[in-house]
C-alpha cells in the first residue's frame, strides 16, 4: 500500500485501505493475500469492495495461521455480509458461472478490531489503535 499519511499522523489514528474490486481483479490469489496481510500486520484496516473467493478465504486463513507469532501478531478479524440465500440457490447462475461472490469485506488485526454487530445489511465494528 502506498504511504498515504505521515508517521506522526499514523501514530494518532488508524489507517484504512479501501481496495477496489478492479484493483483486486488484476492480482493472483497469493498476491491478494499478501496485500491484505502486509497491510493488516502494519495495523491497518483493509476494506475490500468485492471480497475474496471461498478458495482465497481458505488460503487467507492458512497463511494467517502460519504468520501468527506470540506478542507480535495474533491473527485477523474478518467480517463480510452473510451471503443471501436467494443468491445461493440460483442454480442457473451457478451453471452459467455467474454465481456472485462479491461482498464487501472488512479485515483487520485481531487485537484492534472487534465486531459489535453483524446482520445481512450492516456490519458495525469497533476499531482501536495498537
Amino acid at each position: 500500500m502506498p504511504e498515504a499519511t505521515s508517521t506522526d499522523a499514523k501514530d494518532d489514528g488508524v489507517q484504512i485501505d479501501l481496495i477496489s474490486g478492479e484493483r483486486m481483479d488484476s492480482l493472483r490469489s497469493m498476491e491478494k493475500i499478501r496485500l491484505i496481510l502486509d497491510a493488516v500486520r502494519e495495523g491497518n484496516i483493509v476494506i475490500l469492495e468485492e471480497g475474496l473467493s471461498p478458495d482465497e478465504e481458505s488460503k487467507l486463513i492458512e497463511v494467517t495461521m502460519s504468520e501468527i507469532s506470540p506478542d507480535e501478531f495474533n491473527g485477523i478479524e474478518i467480517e463480510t455480509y452473510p451471503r443471501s440465500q436467494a443468491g445461493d440457490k440460483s442454480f442457473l447462475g451457478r451453471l452459467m458461472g455467474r454465481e456472485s461472490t462479491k461482498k464487501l469485506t472488512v479485515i483487520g488485526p485481531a487485537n484492534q478490531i472487534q465486531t459489535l454487530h453483524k446482520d445481512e445489511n450492516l456490519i458495525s465494528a469497533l476499531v482501536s489503535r495498537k
Partner: protein
Amino acid sequence: MGLLTDIKDSITRVTERLFSASEPKRIGIYGPPNAGKTTLANRIARDWTGDAVGPESHVPHETRRARRKENVSIERNGRTVTIDIVDTPGVTTKVDYKEFLEHDMEKDDAVRRSREATEGVAEAMHWLREDVDGVIYVLDSTTDPFTQVNTMLIGIIESRDLPVLIFANKIDLEESNVQRIANAFPQHETVPLSALEGENMDEVYDKIAEYFG
C-alpha cells in the same frame, strides 16, 4: 508379449478403479473450537469400532492435529456404510496464547499450545481443500451460529460441492437452541444431538448413511 502386457495393464486399471470406487469416503469433522468435534468423533468411533479417536477437553484447541479413524463401518437398515473419520482442529482466524493462561497454563506451555493450534488450523484447511469427500459441520447449539468462521467455512464447503451435514451439538444443555442453527443455514439439513450424552444418535447414523453411503 506386448499383447499380454496390454491385457495385464488393462486388468490392473479396471481393478484399481473398482477398488477406488469402493474405498471408504473420508468424512471431515469440522467446526469452530469447542463445538464438540472430538467428542462426536469418539462417540462414533466407540459405537462402531470400540476405540476412541483422541482426548476431549473443555480447553480450546485440545485437538491440534487432524486425526483419522479408518474403516468405521456403520450398519443402517440392513446395509453397511464404511467411512474414514477425520477429526480436525477447530478453525479460527486468530490464536492468542494469553487465552490459554486463563486455563492455569504456564507461559511456555501456552505459547507452545498456540503454535501447535495455528499449525493445526492450517492443516485442517489443507484437508478441506484437498482430502475430504464429505463434511460433518459441528456447532455448539448454545452459541450464536452467525459467526464469520462459520459463514466462511460453509461457503468454502459449498464451493467445493462437498456433501455436508450440520450437527447442532450439546442439546443436553438448557441454553441449546437448534432452530437458531437451522435458520442460519437453511440450505443444509441440521441434525440435533448430544455427542456427550449420546442423545439422538440413531438419527445421526441414519443421516450419515444417507449422505455419505
